[in-house]
């Protein structure tokens, strides 16, 4: 009998505590390395990175954008479950919320290191510039993180020992009853911040690589970022749950849950790709030429060649969409997970391209291309989110009833 067995969810088994300690220790070390990198940045300044006045944004912003897109599985699964009424997704919603919480809290922590004056971070709220997309991002991400905390809290309160406290038990129960309010709020907030993250780059009318026309104040990237996030967020959720199943050696959700999410993802990914290709064509044929650029000006030899475009939209866009659109693709574990990996890679590539390639390409004809490679401090802080995520997720899986179908799928209804 494990010493921490009383903390396990009712009727479940967990691995030996020493293996678990070793496992979480690895994630802990990664996090500690990241905290050390963060300490160096706070102590000595951002000269610890390789960012410069050409590459004002670097690895951290790419990771922030990518994890926020991938963490969209939280709000979107919540929307599907509580607003659209796909009750079968209750089997995976807890995992999605935890992943979302990790992604958003990790991103906020990374941003604290990224800005030059972290103590002044609240000025974005106090001296808000209503015309800036970044202001909108700050407001919505902060409030959405609060929503995620409220969605995560009942799960923590349902820990077997914590729920013995009557107050916590009733609080979590009542929060579940009104969870649709948070799901709705989360959907609303996420729509705006996912969009504004895209809007941030689309409005840069003086950086032709990023600039897009749009509708009213919203560049098309606003809508494309939302679409790509809701298309690939569920893929990321499925990927993490599948990894959890592999590592724990248990089935945790019914296969039909994956199939449903895969189908929804397929549809959204297809719509996204059609609109994204249309937007890319218009930008390449009309917008950029009006500013004196042709496509080959943006995609030159080396790291930012045209292969990037084909990788993002082709290998990591069309291919996973086609896989997920077919029943065989959705029902085969190999193809489903391959498609999820490709889709998640695609959205990461998209964020990378908007951040790094935008900054790499000079606008003034006599300015050069400048190269950028992150320092180890940047990698440390960037990978800390993975370590932190591993820690939180592992602790949650071990001690919280994350997967409602776990008992039914592994221990049978007759076992207590």
């Amino acid at each position, binding site marked *: 009998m494990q010493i921490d067995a009383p903390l396990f969810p009712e009727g479940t088994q967990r691995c030996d505590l020493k293996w678990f300690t070793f496992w979480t220790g690895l994630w802990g070390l990664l996090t500690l390395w990241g905290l050390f990198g963060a300490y160096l940045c706070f102590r000595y*300044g951002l000269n610890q990175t390789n960012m410069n006045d*050409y590459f*004002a944004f670097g690895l951290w912003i790419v990771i922030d954008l990518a994890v926020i897109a991938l963490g969209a599985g939280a709000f979107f699964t919540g929307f599907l479950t509580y607003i659209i009424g796909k009750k079968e997704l209750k089997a995976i919603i807890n995992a999605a919320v935890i992943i979302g919480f990790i992604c958003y809290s990790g991103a906020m922590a990374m941003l604290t290191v990224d800005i*030059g004056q972290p103590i002044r971070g609240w*000025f*974005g709220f106090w001296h808000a510039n209503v015309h*800036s997309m970044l202001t909108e991002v700050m407001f919505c991400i902060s409030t959405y993180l609060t929503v995620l905390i409220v969605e995560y809290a009942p799960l923590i309160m349902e820990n077997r020992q914590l729920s013995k406290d009557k107050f916590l038990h009733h609080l979590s129960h009542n929060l579940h009853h009104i969870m649709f309010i948070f799901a709705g709020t989360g959907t609303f907030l996420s729509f705006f911040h996912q969009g504004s993250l895209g809007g941030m780059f689309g409005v840069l009318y*003086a*950086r032709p690589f990023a600039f897009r026309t749009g509708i009213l104040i919203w560049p098309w990237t606003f809508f494309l970022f939302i679409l790509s996030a809701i298309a690939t967020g569920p893929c990321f959720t499925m990927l993490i749950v599948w990894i959890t199943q592999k590592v724990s050696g248990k089935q945790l959700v019914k296969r039909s849950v994956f199939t449903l999410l895969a189908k929804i993802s397929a549809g959204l990914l297809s719509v996204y790709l059609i609109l994204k290709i249309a937007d890319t064509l218009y930008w390449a044929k009309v917008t950029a030429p009006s500013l*004196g650029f042709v496509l080959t000006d943006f995609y030159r030899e080396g790291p930012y060649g045209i292969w990037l475009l084909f990788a993002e939209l082709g290998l990591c866009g069309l291919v996973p969409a086609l896989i997920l659109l077919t029943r065989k693709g959705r029902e085969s574990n190999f193809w489903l997970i391959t498609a999820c990996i490709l889709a998640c890679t695609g959205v990461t590539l998209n964020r990378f391209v908007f951040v790094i390639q935008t900054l790499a390409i000079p606008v003034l004809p006599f300015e050069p291309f400048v190269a950028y490679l992150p320092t180890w401090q940047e990698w440390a802080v960037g990978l800390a989110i993975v370590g932190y995520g591993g820690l939180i997720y592992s602790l949650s899986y071990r001690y919280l009833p994350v997967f409602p179908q776990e008992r039914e799928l592994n221990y049978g209804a007759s076992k207590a």
Partner: protein
Amino acid sequence: MKPQLGFGEGIKYGMIIDLDKCIGCGACVTACVAENNTSILPDESNKVRSITWMRLYRFDNGKPYPDTEVCYLPRPCMQCDHHTPCVSVCPATATDYDPDGGIVSQIYTRCIGCRYCVAACPYHVRYFNWFDAVWPKGTEAVLNHEVSPRMRGAVEKCSFCHHRLMAAKAKANLEGRRHVLEEEYKPACVEICPTGALTFGDLNNPEHRVYRMSRDPHAFRLLERLGTQPKVFYTTRRRWIRWMSDNWLEGEDKGLTAASGH
């Protein structure tokens, strides 16, 4: 393309730089650093982090000797007049466009250092303080008391020596005048230029030299077709330099005048 002028009403301070007079001596760069208490980095050979509010570019026409021609191009902040790219993106309103004078300001103590403005600016006029400013003992004596030094983690840029405008306005006030005369307010770079390549004044005032010079057919601006409406003009009779001021498609009519050059 002829400049689309019309900066709205009121005073709009601007500059015109004669590239046929600039000899690339760098006095403007030095004067700017001295005037504005710009910090010196531990490694000033790292040009991608060097703080150069006034930056001197050197480029050539790409032809081999004896047809090589070189251009030195001083580049302060363009003080963009239309939908200023950096102002619209700042989340903390640390940078703002002042309609009275047209100068784009920067509040160093409000800047959170997110660097969105640095990303938005196509002219690379904005500089982030990657390091703490260090003033070796004794050097603090040469700091200009009218300009605040900046801290690590904040963005800074050319302000058209705004402190000099404040001093000129105070002087005019004392003398019972509301307006500042053309010769009373000049940024340090304009003042120091040995060849007189830099001219500064009110682009909307017909009595100022910049008014006439900016409307000359040989005047142009950097990245005109982006629509930022910079208030820094350049003039040259050398056509190849004008071609370097913007991006063109192959075969595109670059809209140059018949008034010739090379």
